[in-house]
């Protein structure tokens, strides 16, 4: 963790550097929903007590909060993963029209190669689509510096500004030089006048600027030409912007690139000439023409879409891009070497072992999702799923999750299936969704089921945290981002208010009870909710009782392998004669008891009971 102002040079991830940059740029309000690879920005921003920061229930709310703060005159930041921008797209496109008062910066963290995502959309397209400028840092030092530049641009041009990170800029660590924070207007908060209202608030209360911030058609019509004019001015700015840097070396090969791709290309071609773009939208047209005229062979080296390439080709400039570099997946120095020079970096020598067993991610030992998925597998129902750790329920041996498209989507899928089957899906289809995902965007789907006379059952897998992204708080946990106690949503009351009449609670560790109740509700031709409760094994705020691990009594085990069907990492198979046996890795066993409930001959017992 960076220690504030104690050292001048520190090693920071891009996300930590964005947080530091926000502090140095005088950010006042920051809001986000966790999402890999963006999550650590807000987790790190809380060390700067001057910044108000919060987890919002979803990215749309986060952007709206940041927009409100910017309307109040504060510098505001919203951060999200690439698909989060889809959720926030509604406020985004119109905030482009309204512009800002205090600076408004949106960080989008893209995930080429989908290390932890459901698609690899290229969010540079959002900059063009919403007519908002976008900066893309190449390392942590730039990430920090570009936050300040982004806020200056935002206020100078009256526009929200994007900063685009990718997994490798978000999570890679590199050396950053710390600076003192600017004296910019964090002062919006805290300057109390005598009548109790912040003094600075006066300006926006007296001059609310309705023509700018109330996007009635007549006002929006007036703002659209402003947006077009702004883009032109930003284009001129891009040409003059020194961070759009021409590095002229060997002119036989010129490479236009941005972000971490610049470093990949520079690694493999240290002597080539580069046009390194910091502002990736709008493009510096004149600079591109100048660079193109000075090099013999021109490449565009950009991850994902041919975003620069298409625009550069539209200028009538001959350039090589996606004909030699892939659209899909992540770049590397080797991708540059192969595309530009045809060099194959990988060794061709004979591997020592031809086939290596894969090691995919798995639910943790003691994960409360495991028993629920085992039950659903047994029931042989179609499981409309969602985004979270429980998506791993699709992998072997459980293989019990049948859809996963977007946050909150599974509930809609269940209703769609039910309606396609003319309400006869009852007993065959169920939706599963995590607690954080339900609060993010599952509530409206459930409301729809009730309103439109659906019959689906929604299982809320309540593990009391946003587990997959690293256990962040949300409105159901009872704690804020900073760990302050707050109200925790009551799912029962919430679902009842939506009109659900059958709401049951089950203990995720009690297989028999869970099966009985889930069967009853799934077979009921009415909307219902089952709340499966057990905290995530890694959840930190609830002291979970230390349970003794289980063991397999070898003399009792018949070697039927029933216990292995849940895919627990602690359960292993020992091949031996005459019959193989299961055994439990004591160091991994979390004592959840699920496997012992499955054993037909009661061979699995708690260690202390065995003594």
């Amino acid at each position, binding site marked *: 963790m960076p220690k504030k102002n104690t050292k001048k*040079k520190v*090693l920071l991830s891009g996300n930590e550097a964005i947080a530091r940059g926000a502090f140095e740029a005088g950010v006042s309000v920051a809001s986000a929903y966790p999402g*890999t*690879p963006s*999550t650590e920005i807000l987790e790190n921003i809380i060390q700067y007590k001057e910044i108000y920061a919060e987890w919002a229930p979803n990215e749309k709310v986060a952007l709206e909060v940041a927009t409100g703060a910017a309307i109040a005159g504060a510098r505001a930041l919203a951060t999200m993963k690439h698909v989060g921008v889809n959720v926030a797209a509604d406020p985004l496109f119109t905030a482009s029209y309204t512009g800002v008062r205090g600076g408004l910066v949106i960080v989008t963290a893209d995930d080429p190669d989908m*290390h*932890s*995502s459901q698609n690899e959309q290229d969010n540079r397209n959002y900059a063009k689509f919403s007519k908002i400028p976008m900066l893309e840092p190449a*390392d942590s030092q730039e990430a920090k510096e570009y936050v300040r530049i982004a806020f200056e641009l935002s206020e100078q041009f009256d526009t929200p500004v994007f900063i685009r990170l990718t*997994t*490798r800029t978000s*999570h*890679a*660590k*590199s*050396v950053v030089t710390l600076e003192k924070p600017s004296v910019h207007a964090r002062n919006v908060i805290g300057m109390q006048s005598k009548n109790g209202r912040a003094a600075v608030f006066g300006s926006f209360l007296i001059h609310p600027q309705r023509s700018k911030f109330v996007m009635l058609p007549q006002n929006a019509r007036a703002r659209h030409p402003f947006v077009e004019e702004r883009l032109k001015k930003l284009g001129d700015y891009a040409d003059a912007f020194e961070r759009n840097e021409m590095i002229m070396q060997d002119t036989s090969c010129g490479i236009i690139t941005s972000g*971490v791709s610049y*470093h*990949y290309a*520079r*690694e*493999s071609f*240290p002597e080539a000439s580069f046009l390194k773009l910091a502002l990736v939208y709008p493009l510096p047209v004149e600079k591109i023409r100048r660079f193109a005229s000075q090099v013999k062979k021109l490449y565009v080296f950009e991850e994902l879409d041919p975003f620069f390439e298409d625009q550069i080709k539209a200028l009538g400039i001959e350039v090589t891009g996606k004909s030699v570099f892939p659209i899909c997946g992540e770049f*590397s*120095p*080797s991708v540059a*070497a192969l595309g530009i020079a045809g060099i194959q*970096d*990988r*060794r061709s*020598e004979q*591997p*020592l*072992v031809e*086939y*290596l*067993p*894969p*090691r*995919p*991610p*798995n*639910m*943790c030992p003691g994960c409360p999702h495991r028993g629920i998925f085992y039950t659903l597998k047994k029931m042989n129902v179609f499981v409309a799923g969602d985004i979270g*750790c429980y998506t*791993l329920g699709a992998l*072997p*041996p459980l293989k019990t999750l049948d859809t996963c498209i977007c946050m909150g989507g599974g509930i809609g899928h269940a209703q769609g299936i039910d309606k396609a089957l003319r309400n006869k899906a009852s007993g065959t289809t169920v939706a599963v969704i995590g607690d954080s995902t339900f609060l993010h965007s599952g509530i409206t789907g459930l409301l729809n089921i009730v309103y439109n006379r659906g019959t689906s059952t929604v299982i809320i897998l309540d593990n009391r945290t946003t587990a*997959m*992204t*690293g256990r962040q708080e949300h409105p159901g946990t009872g704690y804020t981002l900073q760990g302050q106690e707050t109200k925790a949503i009551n799912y029962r009351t919430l679902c009842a208010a939506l009109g659900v009449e059958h709401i049951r609670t089950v203990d995720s560790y009690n297989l028999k009870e869970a099966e009985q109740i889930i069967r009853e509700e799934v077979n009921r031709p009415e909307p219902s909710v089952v709340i499966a409760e057990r905290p995530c094994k890694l959840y930190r705020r609830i002291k979970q009782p230390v349970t003794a691990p289980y063991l397999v009594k070898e003399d009792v085990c018949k070697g039927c*392998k029933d216990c*292995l069907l849940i*895919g627990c*990492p602690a*359960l*292993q*198979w020992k*091949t031996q004669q005459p019959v*193989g046996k299961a055994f439990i890795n004591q160091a991994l066993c979390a004592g959840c008891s699920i496997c012992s409930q499955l054993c037909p001959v009661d061979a699995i017992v708690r260690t202390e009971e065995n003594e």
Partner: protein
Amino acid sequence: MNNAIKNILMAGVGGQGVILASEIVAEAVMLAGLDVKKSEVHGMAQRGGSVTSHVCFGEKVYSPIIRDGEVDILFSFELLETLRFQSVLKDDPVILVNQQKILPPSVILGRDIYPENIAEMLKERYPRFKLINAQALALQAGNARAVNVAFVGALSRYLKIPESCWHEAIETMLPAKLVKVNLKAFTLGRETPQ
């Protein structure tokens, strides 16, 4: 070449402390006055799956991930994981392997076989292969969980970084109450012959 970059590829299984080890190495290198970049992925990619971390350092580092074929040191926390990276190694690489087996799910289910004699095969192919029992070193230091720091100690022998930088890095990266035992584990690892 005066800008000689050293590339360490760290490999292991989620939960083994690979990331923390890479943090300590990167911090120590920075304290020694070198440029450094390191990279790995978080989120879905962890959860008990294969984990890698790239650490690159030298006078001036560009890419945070290692070019294929440029891995100087493969620092592997688990025997099987070592075998996944043969195609990205440099000629005559240093290969340090922690003597631990963690069975992948398909092996646990009895569907795949965990390859046998991995250490012997590596030793035969790579002259600069070394097997370290970091678990034993950690236990000797007094805490089984210091295994990754003991293993970093063994790695430190191969890098020209002053010992004081390693100590400072460990002090920076670990909670105060764990510093002492980890320093001991580091020293035990460092004393393992190269």
